């Protein structure tokens, strides 16, 4: 028996199960939706019935109050005086707080200091919160805050990247990456081009706005319901703001009505304000932002201005590049250090730059603090690479796709030694492994009939004086892992109850991406039970502690592995019990088809669990996972920040009206790499949704400000995300078959949340292709983004006049 126990020590257990899985229980098992199948979203039935509960749908508690903040009308100003008498006297108002009422920390900066929960003396963006009220209704609170009398001394505001650069105003110091000898390579290159690309920001426009509900508990504690991607950080910040230990605060996140990064750090202030108001009033307080407040007061995707200086040979092969990415961060660091880093990590996209210098600036402006948004700077960085490719293509007179193929990191079988270690080294010295992009490009070109369509488009353009079509194919290589190493960990908690039903918790939050469904599938796979047997409950800080945000596409990679680990722990105990009870060896115990097979016998899962309970087996376990292999030394800007890369290619076709700049995306073909898919339907949902969201970012979604730093695009009436009408008439999406992740990820799948977003860069390139046709493809259209009809028309005119000046 002792021998057996030793054999069943944890490492062996895990090994045994992994091997068994790989051989006999691969995710292709027929039957109910386990891993690898198209399981429905776990809440789909509730969504369609209006029965899925969001925080605003909770029945109000007796005495519940509603919060709202008073905010700054100036971008940069000193607060001289603040008289809130009228606010306090307003109908329905029960509680008013200012910075002086905050018991603990005033600064809730998530990584670096700089985010004051309420401002005391200096405001740094239009919409910055100065005070908060709690009133008997949402409307009463909103009306009351307008009654404040605040005197300001208005200060000059820095509002643009150019101004910030000129004043050397940064929220964090610049950072640089280097590969080879870029200066020499550029100086010696036979061809050299300078260029720039403006990449506009983006409003998250999650359909459910920011919301938190704080319920006071005993001992100064607080139970918080938050619409947050990062419950543990909300817990930490609420505790610090209230000046209580973390263990007094519980944060509960069942689901969000969309997040997209906008609720990674920026859900916390509203939870903190709700908590302070709840503490002071002694009542539950719900804090919900109106749409216009949400759009004005929360950060967006960073606007970037990227510059490049590239040297290349006559074929268009890049010999060296000097790239600068300038991110507009807003008034505080928030996550901007890591975001601009990720822009830098992706400014090569899929191309070997040979000799490269990449500089990232974190520009400080008197605007709202920009934050995480699907891709986390990656998309903006990638635009530098693609702008460079496009410019080279027009210069050497080739189809841009040829320049792409020429400059891709080499495929494995093509790799050969090169002084710097081969054509597979990124500017941060990570080797590109399992490089699928060249293969995927060729496959998509064939599947989407690229060459024939390109020829047809040329013919169309020759005979169509006003409308011009364009077609472009672009790749995405996206690094998977948090670049902040310690975040790459996750925990899970599984209980099996005596009826055999399974209760699953993990640190990941559900914002629509299907994480709960996928992790439930993984646990179902491990126990070989139907997925309906598993309930994934809300992410709660009192169940799984010290979690990382659900971000960086890592939700399934991290939490799936942690849940698998927990499941395998319980399985190990069950196997051990079976061996004792039925005198069999571990090899004779296996789980299949809702049964536990023990030698010749088979017990329904629930029955066997009942036996195990009677046999006093612990049916609850935690699981843990940390991503292996990753490291990055920021001082030398080198290492392996990414566990692996997720890849995709897209070909988009557009038609442009050269009289108005209006356009339409006619067709898009996508081939995307998700390794071995855990759930093809959910993965395709992420790919299509990401593509359309990316298309919005590059086309119609224009964040507009006035000269005083006030947001003009503050409502869906004047900020236009795609509608059904923008869906390409033809949209073909394929998951790359037969390429499981070579790394040991959960069942060799790959992350899918962010990478497809950048497939939409093909739309921007297709617009450029259409415009460039006006000059027989000689001129590279200076098309900045978002490429609204106005920008397209401007590019049409600039392209035509550049051709005249040739």
């Amino acid at each position, binding site marked *: 028996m002792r021998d057996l126990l030793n054999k069943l020590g944890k490492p062996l257990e895990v090994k045994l199960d992994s091997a068994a899985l790989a051989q006999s229980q691969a995710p292709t098992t027929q039957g109910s939706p386990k891993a690898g199948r198209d399981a429905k979203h776990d809440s789909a039935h509730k969504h369609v019935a209006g029965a899925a509960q969001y925080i605003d749908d909770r029945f109000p508690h007796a005495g519940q109050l509603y919060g709202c903040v008073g905010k700054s009308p100036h971008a940069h100003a000193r607060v001289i005086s603040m008289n809130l008498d009228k606010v306090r006297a307003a109908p329905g108002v029960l509680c008013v707080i200012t910075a002086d009422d905050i018991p603990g920390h005033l600064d809730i900066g998530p990584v670096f200091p700089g985010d004051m929960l309420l401002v005391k003396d200096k405001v740094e963006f239009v919409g910055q919160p100065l005070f908060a009220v709690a009133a008997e209704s949402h409307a009463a609170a909103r009306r009351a805050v307008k009654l404040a009398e605040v005197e300001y001394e208005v200060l000059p505001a820095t509002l643009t990247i150019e101004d910030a650069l000129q004043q050397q105003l940064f929220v964090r110091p610049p950072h640089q990456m280097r590969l080879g000898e870029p200066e020499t390579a550029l100086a010696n290159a036979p061809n050299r081009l300078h260029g720039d690309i403006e990449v506009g920001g983006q409003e998250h426009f999650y359909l459910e706005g920011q919301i938190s509900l704080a319920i006071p508990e005993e001992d100064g504690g607080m139970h918080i319901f938050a619409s947050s991607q990062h419950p543990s950080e909300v817990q930490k910040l609420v505790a610090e703001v209230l000046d209580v230990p973390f263990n007094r605060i519980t944060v509960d996140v069942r689901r969000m009505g969309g997040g997209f990064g906008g609720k990674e750090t920026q859900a916390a202030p509203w939870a903190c304000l709700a908590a302070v108001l709840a503490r002071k009033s002694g009542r539950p307080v719900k804090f919900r932002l109106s749409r216009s407040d949400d759009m004005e007061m929360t950060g967006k995707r960073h606007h970037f201005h990227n510059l490049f200086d590239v040297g290349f040979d006559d074929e268009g092969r890049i010999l060296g590049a000097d790239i600068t990415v300038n991110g507009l961060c807003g008034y505080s660091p928030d996550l901007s250090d890591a975001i601009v880093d990720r822009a830098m990590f992706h400014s090569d996209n899929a191309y070997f730059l040979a000799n490269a210098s990449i500089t990232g600036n974190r520009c400080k402006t008197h605007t709202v603090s920009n934050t995480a948004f699907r891709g986390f700077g990656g998309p903006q960085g990638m635009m530098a690479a693609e702008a460079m490719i496009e410019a080279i293509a027009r210069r050497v007179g080739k189809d841009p796709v040829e320049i792409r193929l020429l400059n891709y990191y080499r495929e494995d079988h093509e790799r050969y030694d090169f002084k710097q270690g081969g054509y597979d080294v990124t500017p941060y010295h990570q080797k590109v492994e399992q490089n699928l992009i060249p293969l995927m490009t060729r496959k998509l070109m064939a599947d989407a009939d690229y060459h024939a369509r390109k020829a047809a488009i040329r013919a169309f353009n020759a005979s169509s004086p006003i409308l011009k079509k364009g077609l472009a194919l672009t790749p995405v290589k996206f690094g998977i892992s948090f670049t902040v190493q310690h975040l790459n960990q996750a925990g899970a908690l599984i209980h099996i109850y005596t009826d055999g039903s399974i209760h699953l918790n993990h640190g990941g939050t559900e914002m629509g991406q299907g994480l709960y469904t996928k992790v439930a599938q993984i646990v179902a796979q491990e126990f070989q039970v139907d997925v309906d047997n598993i309930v994934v409950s809300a992410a709660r800080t009192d169940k799984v502690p010290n979690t990382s945000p659900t971000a960086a596409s890592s939700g399934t990679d991290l939490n799936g592995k942690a849940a698998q680990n927990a499941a395998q722990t319980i399985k190990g105990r069950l196997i051990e019990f079976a061996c004792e009870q039925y005198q069999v060896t571990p090899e004779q115990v296996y789980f299949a088809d809702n049964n536990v097979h023990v030698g010749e016998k088979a017990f329904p899962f629930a029955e066997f669990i009942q036996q195990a309970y009677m046999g006093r087996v612990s049916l609850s376990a935690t699981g843990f996972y940390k991503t292996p292999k990753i490291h990055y030394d920021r001082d030398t800007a080198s290492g392996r920040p990414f566990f692996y890369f997720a890849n995709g290619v897209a070909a988009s076709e557009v038609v442009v009206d050269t009289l108005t700049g209006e356009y339409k995306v006619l067709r898009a073909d996508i081939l995307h790499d998700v390794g071995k898919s855990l759930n093809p*339907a959910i993965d395709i949902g992420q790919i*299509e949704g990401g593509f359309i969201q990316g298309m919005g970012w590059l086309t*119609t979604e224009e964040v507009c400000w006035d000269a005083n730093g006030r947001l003009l695009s503050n409502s869906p009436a004047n900020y236009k995300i795609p509608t059904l009408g923008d869906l390409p008439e033809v949209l073909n999406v394929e998951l790359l078959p037969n390429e499981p992740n070579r790394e040991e990820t959960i069942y060799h799948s790959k992350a899918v949340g962010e990478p497809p977003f950048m497939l939409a860069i093909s739309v921007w390139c297709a617009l450029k292709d259409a415009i460039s046709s006006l000059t027989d493809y000689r001129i590279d259209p200076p098309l900045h983004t978002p490429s609204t009809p106005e920008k397209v028309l401007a590019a049409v005119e600039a392209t035509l006049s550049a051709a005249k000046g040739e």
Partner: protein
Amino acid sequence: MIRFLLNDDALELDNFDPDLTILEFLRTNKGLTGTKEGCASGDCGACTAVIATEENGALAYRSINTCITFLGGLHGKQLITVEYLNRRGALHPVQQAMVDQHGSQCGFCTPGFVMSLYALYQHKQQKADTRACSRQEGEAYLAGNLCRCTGYRPILDAARQATSPEQLAQIKEDEAAICARLAAIKAQGPGSVTREDQGVTKHFHLPTNLDQLAQFYDAAPSARLLAGGTDLALEVTQQLKQLDNIIYVGAVDEMNALTVTEDTLEIGAAVTYERAMSALSQEYPDIEPFLERLGSMQVRNQGTLGGNIGNASPIGDMPPVLLALNAVLTLRKGEQSRRLPLDQFFLDYKKTALQPGEFIASISIPRARPDASLHLYKVSKRLEDDISAVCLACYLKIENGSVAEIRLGVGGMAAIPKRAMLTEQAMLQQPWTPDTIQAAQTAIMQEFSPLSDVRASADYRRKVAANLLQRLYIESADGAVATRVFHYA
């Protein structure tokens, strides 16, 4: 008191704030939280519900944005929310289709989509339209619902699944019974709401005929007239105004009338875009694709021609069209009526020729003539449900190769919707040639000094207005040249 059906329940309500929105009522007063608030401005569709009204003995089902619809207007109608659809336990075919096609991700917009799909389902079932839902139909019914997660493909597929002949045969509402219940409500008399609130008496009036309306409004000219409310409600939900006295024109019989005479279309000011669309499009085919881009289905189901004019926004889409068509308004104040050509109605930014207590009763539009044509152009950032950066409407008659008659209505180019008179002069009696167009382009660039704003710069607006004249010429000169990216095959 007002009486209406909330799903299956007959409700009698009084003593509520006249500016209470349906969404607020559902979520706060009734605890029906399936209907979501996404924007509270009628732009996202998360709060979509369906209103069924009795019309000529049958029920008409229309989707609306409950966030910008006041409760009082529900008198005599059935309000259908998402909770109604699976009241028998099983999912409705439109709900099942959304599940089957993976049409929900975060789920927040989903109930709104489900209700828009339900309106489509009812529409196709009533019309016995068994053709698969087309892309265009899908856009018409669903483009007013924003989804940030899916990218819409699975939702369009759900629309197709749910409207197959087999699915359309699945659930039939008992329309006769509902009609009877609504008729019984109406038989109990018109609705009216009074609220006593801290010494203030608030009203929601629902006059049923023109005389009554004229009387109410003349007596209280500071009251707010409510038609579709798609703009008025924003004062409540966005500017936090409290409206204490509302007169709803939607129950006025005469203002809902649509009459075709020998020479004109007479359209009651409370006729919605949706109801006006077919009559207008029959006369002027360009109006159909143009109106399909005005707001969303929810907005077209609520918004009225009269409201679009009375609101006097410089970026409303109908005024330029009606200016080009030489529409004439019938205005009413007390017992007095007068007729006023539309081009004399708009005085300055949001200022009109209406006297206090005076309102638009109807709009008279000349019918189409075989020798003239109407051309409509709208340029906006987004195809669907967006406000024009520039709108150009052109009524054109060419005789013997020269311009015999031209009227250009423009939107987005000035503080008011306006005729481009100087441009018209540059074209009138001139040969229909590129030279004339060039002269007109110069004229239109000089005639207007538009604003730069969130929708477009002044420069772009001017350029586009000029280029649209070129498009007009090309389209009239050579039908073979493709000039529009929308509805482009």
